[in-house]
């Protein structure tokens, strides 16, 4: 393989994986649509297109196992599209299984390995399905389309790799062009004009005879769309001479123009242009060979082209070459793409962003530029004012100097008996100016300062919008994870023998990419839980007078800067009594303890809690909901359960829109500033040291009826500070039922904090979640409250050990 389509090409591969993901998703969702609505032509077309694109792309990046397997799927889909094979639940299962294999193959490839599991059973299932083995279950549904029906036999043997027997030999017979390919050729031809086959013989004496195939290809490119070549494009690219090459092209141009384009002196010996009929199923090739042409001229015998001739083409020279040239188009596109992206170095994960958002940003950036200009102006006028001030100061000094010099004279005149009144008037009139000397300066200063304020204000507004705009770029619709659920629900309901429908609402709700990625697992847990425990069997539902089909709703919505995701079912609801007895049995609560229903529901999130009497493959092992809670808390979110007997259960997940910017409370410890995420702050107190009590060697203090243990941040982070003070500040932090008071020197204030991740070697520092750069450029560390709660406990135990040691 030439280095041109280098399979190791990182960029191409990344594009491939991104695109493959999209195709697989589209396959899956459309197959599910088809299951419910087998007549949906759009879905059929889409599913077919996705499989085809995936196959071609896989071939481009040389993932043969993937392209071959996808080809089988595509064949089957083709049968479905043409109405030969009807869709049934079994068929959907087979297809979905195949998609799972495709996913696994892509996954394996992305990990750098080749999928090696045995897929022969599935392959043959696909093949037999394509050959109509499922016909019994459901007859073809579209008899009106039977005119398009293609013979089934040619589909066989498509899996075998290189040197496969010629497939798709149609009644009159064009070797190496399957009817599927012709179908595709015709598809293209419909939009782009006539279909031709150019048979070009090359001159072996040409010093660079191996270039000819490509040269003719590029020569044709300007006039026609080359759909396929035989030998395929890849082979032409090799350094091998092929005496004869066939080009399948779609074009508006006439045969004579094509012939002229393909004829290159010294390179080609002869060009034969054949017209391919674009209607009917005969697939006959019409046309006649143009006579071998000398170096000079154009195709000179045009009439000959119209002669009808059925050509069964025989090319001994190229018989070893597998037909696969329909990838040519894809290759060419891929080639164009690599060209365009060669210069664009992408790193990290790829994010698709609505271009309007970029435009908005650009707008804001231009505003900052204007803003910058006004600051430039301001700095100019401040400079001017400084020199003006110096001028006024000079005047003032000069006047004062003259005044002092004149004083002896005035004194003398006063002594000589001049009236004080006159003297004072004269003195006043000479030096009055001193009063108002700075007035014009003050006026200008006032003006400039107000302009300055305006500019600062608009800078604030712009940077705020800019921040929001950049954050919006990271926002992706939650549909990206919601879209996985239809399949999940379908599979689960089949395996659980329950009948249910998934309703998705608010899939346009957007949230930060990093949040979306971490949200999938907990959501899957919740939905599984709803399916398994939340919903009754159809029999139970019937007996309790509900519709047999249960509904599970996934709903996302915005609430302030939080996102609400609800997973609700219309099942029997949570049995409060059973939860309670289970909790007592497990020793989670004391039998005499009074708990509200919602307290009891939240016990479900305790590790090891499951009210399911049987363990199924889906859930019931008591791991799950506690994991959900932990994962959501990691996202600074919260999970709540609400349930009403007989009506249903709702899990509500609340998470912040983004993790990159948080509200934080800045506090001071010694000389250091720390930031405590506002979401974790419950309250703050200013207390006298005397209020700190020692309980069981823990430092604690009373907040109303509660006792809160204290942690001195200065001790935890080893920051030197004065501990003996009149007052200390305590910030009470916590999540859920765990609380803790952090002792700090002072509170600074509340602000928006941009979290900067710390380099790897600092992330091990306990209790630190990240860093933030404050307005004056210093670094403030952000406290990881959840970790601190654990840490505090340990610290307390250690301290206790130390004290004991000292006593002993």
């Amino acid at each position, binding site marked *: 393989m*030439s280095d*041109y389509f280098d399979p190791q090409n990182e960029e191409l591969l990344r594009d491939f994986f991104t695109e493959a993901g999209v195709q697989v998703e589209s396959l899956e969702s459309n197959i599910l649509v088809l299951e419910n609505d087998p007549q949906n032509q759009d879905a059929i077309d889409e599913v077919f297109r996705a499989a085809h694109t995936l196959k071609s792309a896989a071939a481009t990046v040389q993932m043969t196992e993937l392209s071959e397997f996808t080809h089988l799927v595509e064949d089957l889909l083709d049968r479905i599209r043409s109405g030969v094979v009807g869709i049934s639940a079994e068929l959907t299962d087979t297809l979905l299984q195949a998609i799972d294999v495709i996913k696994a193959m892509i996954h394996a490839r992305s990990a750098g390995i080749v999928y090696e599991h045995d897929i022969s059973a599935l392959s043959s299932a696909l093949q037999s399905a394509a050959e109509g083995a499922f016909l019994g279950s459901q007859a073809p549904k579209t008899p009106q389309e039977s005119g398009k029906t293609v013979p089934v036999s040619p589909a066989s043997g498509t899996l075998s790799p290189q040197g496969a027997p010629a497939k798709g030999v149609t009644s009159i017979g064009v070797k190496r062009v399957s009817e599927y390919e012709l179908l595709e050729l015709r598809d293209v031809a419909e939009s782009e004009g006539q279909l031709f086959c150019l048979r070009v013989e090359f001159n072996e004496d040409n*010093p*660079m005879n*191996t*270039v000819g195939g*490509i*040269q003719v*290809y*590029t020569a044709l490119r*300007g006039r026609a769309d080359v759909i396929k070549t035989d030998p395929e494009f890849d082979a032409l*690219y090799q*350094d091998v001479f092929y005496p004869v090459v066939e080009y399948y092209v779609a074009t508006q141009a006439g045969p004579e123009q094509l012939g002229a384009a393909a004829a*290159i*002196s*010294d390179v080609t010996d002869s060009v034969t242009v054949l017209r391919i009929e674009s209607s009917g199923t005969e697939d006959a090739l019409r046309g006649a060979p143009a006579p071998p042409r000398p170096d000079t001229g154009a195709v000179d015998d045009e009439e000959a082209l119209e002669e009808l001739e059925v050509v069964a083409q025989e090319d001994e020279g190229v018989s070893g070459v597998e037909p696969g040239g329909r990838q040519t188009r894809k290759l060419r596109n891929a*080639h164009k793409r690599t*060209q365009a992206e060669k210069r664009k170095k992408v790193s990290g994960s790829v994010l698709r962003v609505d271009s309007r958002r970029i435009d908005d940003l650009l707008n804001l950036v231009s505003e900052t530029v204007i803003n910058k200009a006004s600051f430039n102006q301001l700095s100019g006028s401040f400079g001017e004012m400084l020199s003006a001030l110096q001028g006024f100061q000079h005047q003032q000094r000069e006047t004062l100097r003259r005044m002092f010099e004149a004083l002896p004279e005035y004194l003398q005149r006063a002594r000589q008996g001049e009236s004080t009144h006159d003297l004072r008037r004269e003195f006043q009139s000479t030096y009055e100016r001193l009063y108002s000397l700075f007035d014009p300066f003050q006026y200008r200063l006032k003006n400039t300062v107000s302009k300055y304020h305006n500019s600062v204000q608009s800078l604030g507004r712009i940077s705020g919008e800019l921040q929001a705009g950049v954050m919006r770029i990271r926002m992706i619709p939650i549909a990206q994870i919601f879209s996985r659920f239809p399949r999940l629900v379908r599979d689960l309901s089949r395996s659980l023998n329950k009948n249910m429908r998934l309703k998705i609402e608010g899939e346009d709700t957007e949230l930060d990419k990093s949040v979306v990625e971490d949200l999938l697992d907990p959501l899957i847990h919740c939905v599984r839980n709803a399916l398994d425990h939340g919903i009754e069997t159809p029999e139970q539902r019937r007996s309790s007078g509900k519709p047999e089909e249960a509904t599970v709703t996934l709903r996302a919505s915005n609430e302030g800067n939080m996102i609400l995701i609800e997973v609700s079912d219309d099942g029997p609801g949570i049995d409060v009594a059973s939860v309670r007895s289970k909790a007592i049995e497990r020793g989670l609560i004391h039998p005499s303890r009074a708990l509200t229903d919602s307290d009891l529901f939240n016990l479900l999130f305790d590790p090891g809690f499951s009210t399911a009497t049987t363990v199924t493959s889906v859930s019931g092992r008591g791991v799950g909901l506690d994991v959900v809670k932990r994962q959501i808390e990691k996202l600074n979110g919260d999970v709540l359960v609400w349930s009403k007997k007989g009506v249903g259960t709702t899990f509500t997940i609340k998470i912040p829109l983004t993790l990159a910017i948080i509200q934080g409370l800045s506090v001071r410890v010694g000389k250091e500033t720390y930031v405590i995420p506002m979401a974790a702050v419950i309250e703050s107190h200013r207390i006298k040291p005397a209020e700190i009590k020692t309980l069981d060697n823990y430092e604690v203090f009373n907040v109303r009826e509660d006792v809160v243990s204290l942690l001195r941040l200065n001790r935890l982070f080893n920051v030197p500070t004065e501990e003996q003070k009149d007052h200390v500040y305590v910030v009470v932090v916590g999540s859920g039922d765990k609380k803790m008071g952090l002792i700090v020197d002072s509170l600074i204030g509340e602000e928006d904090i941009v979290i900067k991740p710390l380099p790897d070697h600092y992330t091990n520092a306990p209790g630190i979640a990240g860093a933030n750069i404050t307005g004056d450029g210093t670094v403030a560390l952000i406290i990881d409250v959840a970790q601190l709660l654990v840490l505090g406990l340990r610290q307390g135990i250690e301290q206790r050990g130390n004290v004991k040691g000292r006593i002993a």
Partner: protein
Amino acid sequence: MTNMYDFPSIDERPAIGVRQDGSPYRVLVVDDSMFVTKQISQILTSEGFEIVGTAADGQEGVERYKELYPKVDVVTMDITMPQMDGVTALEQIMEFDKNARVVMISALGKQDLVKKSLLIGAKNYIVKPLDRKKVLERILMTLEH
């Protein structure tokens, strides 16, 4: 045809490198070898072409093309050159002017690069050692298209 034999004339064949209106075709020669540059120039000027510029490497070639554009009809581009090779230069020229007519000059054995160039958009190629007839023929072919 017979006319010509009847009345032979030294002006029987008009210079190839001149358009019907009498203006010459303008050529930019990009080649790191002085010898080849000269050779191509001689072949072309003898047929009435005008050499509007020469460049000794790909980088310079691209720059010259951009300077001359649109007053250049065809570029001959060597494939192996220092600084920037001909394929890259071709890429950049095509990017700048998608209708650019570039003919690659290649030594034997560089088939893969020639193919690559053709795919990028080179209109034709000439194999070294250069043959007067071939050079003229291929360049003309490019201009006719």
